[in-house]
């Protein structure tokens, strides 16, 4: 199963399971909509909290989408196929995570513009908000994939995944929310965005090894 075939297969499967992929998106909208209900609709207050709320909602939404990353392939045996294929497992997992990000992470980035409106986030800084999410959500996907790989052979891994992964996402949340907040106040946003980009590079280069290692361990048990 060479790389291109894997990507095409993943995208076809994702398309076929559209319903399942809607979950992170719907979750993101609902969680964001909860905060005004909880905190009141006073525009100034919502604006002040908008970056943090959107980022936490995006973080949790991307985590929700991770559990199914390897689960279906584990059950129908195609995960073993991936392990046996000549192509390096690290490379295949890299592709798998990126395609998974395309169908779960990217929608969150696009939707964040809408959520910004919901929370009275200034329109002119929406580009930085979406930009920070564009850099951040792939990192969340890689971190979530590490957790998914380690827990794929466990029955009730859904509850375990957030505990493993959330502490690791703290830096992404810090710099992401900071970038969105600084944009709102007109301050320079280069620093946090560069940190996010650095974390993305680190995730792309290192995470596949942890994911592949996790898959090998899970498939031995």
């Amino acid at each position, binding site marked *: 199963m060479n790389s291109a075939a894997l990507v095409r297969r993943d995208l076809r499967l994702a398309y076929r399971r559209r319903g399942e992929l809607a979950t992170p998106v719907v979750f993101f909208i609902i969680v964001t909509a909860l905060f005004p209900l909880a905190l009141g609709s006073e525009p100034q207050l919502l604006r002040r909290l908008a970056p943090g709320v959107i980022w936490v909602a995006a973080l949790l939404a991307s985590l929700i989408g991770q559990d199914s990353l390897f689960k279906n392939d584990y059950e129908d045996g195609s995960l073993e196929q991936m392990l046996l294929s000549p192509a390096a497992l690290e490379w295949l997992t890299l592709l798998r995570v990126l395609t998974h990000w395309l169908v779960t992470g990217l929608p969150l980035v696009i939707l964040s513009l809408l959520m910004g409106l919901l929370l009275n986030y200034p329109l002119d800084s929406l580009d930085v908000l979406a930009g920070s999410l564009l850099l951040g959500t792939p990192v969340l996907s890689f971190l979530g994939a*590490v957790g998914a790989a*380690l*827990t794929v*052979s*466990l029955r009730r*891994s859904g509850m*375990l995944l957030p*505990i*493993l992964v*959330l*502490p*690791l996402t*703290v*830096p992404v949340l*810090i*710099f992401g929310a*900071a970038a969105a907040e600084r944009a709102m106040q007109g301050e320079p946003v280069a620093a946090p965005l560069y*940190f996010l980009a650095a*974390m993305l590079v*680190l995730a792309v280069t*290192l995470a596949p090894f*942890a994911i592949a*290692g*996790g898959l090998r*361990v*899970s498939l*031995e*048990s």
Partner: protein
Amino acid sequence: MFVWFHKLASPPYFYRLAGRLAPWLAWASLIVILAGLYGGLWLAPPDYQQGDGFRIIYVHVPSAWMSLFIYVVMALAAAIGLIWRMKLAHAVSAAAAPLGAAFTFLALVTGSLWGKPMWGTYWVWDARLTSELVLLFLYFGYLALHRAFEDQRSGDRAGAILALVGIVNVPIIHYSVKWWNTLHQGPTVFFGARADIAPSMYIPLFIMIIGFMLYFAAFVLKRLQVEILSRERHTAWVQELAGKP
């Protein structure tokens, strides 16, 4: 030398060695800690700013130091376990994790008890305390994952990978929290940071840290014995060991 390393890796030999070493280390740690307490609580002069309240340092800083030190030990053992496939190394990680979590919890409690008289609130989002809190979550993650597997061997290896992923993230988390802290709240002068504390103050601190290290060595070996027994429960030497009371 390799023979010694190989022998060390054989569970029955290590089990007995741990059994012999642990009591000595335990008593040594007790003596050193008592000495440190005497130096810190009785001899050391009160701080000109914080009075006697600063004496919490003698339990807060050592436990914060141990919480990080033990995580590094876990990550090293995890790496050794994965690279050389040594079950014993994974047993070390499994034995050290609860102690690491305990020290992290201790660092948080003593830190917040120290925060009350100094800043008026039990919890301060100080950079160090916040990283300590995230470290506690990392420990919970390891413990939860390690216990989730029925097959101990996979639990070990999965936990090892998580520990390695964790150790890569620890410095990143620490510096991003530090960056975040200076962003929202000016750098609070946390007592440990000041370098001008008198020798009579920081000598007991080193003694306490050594005492805590000895304590860790003693009781990680004790826990290691339990881990070895539970991993080797079907082997002859454990049956024989269990046979005679």
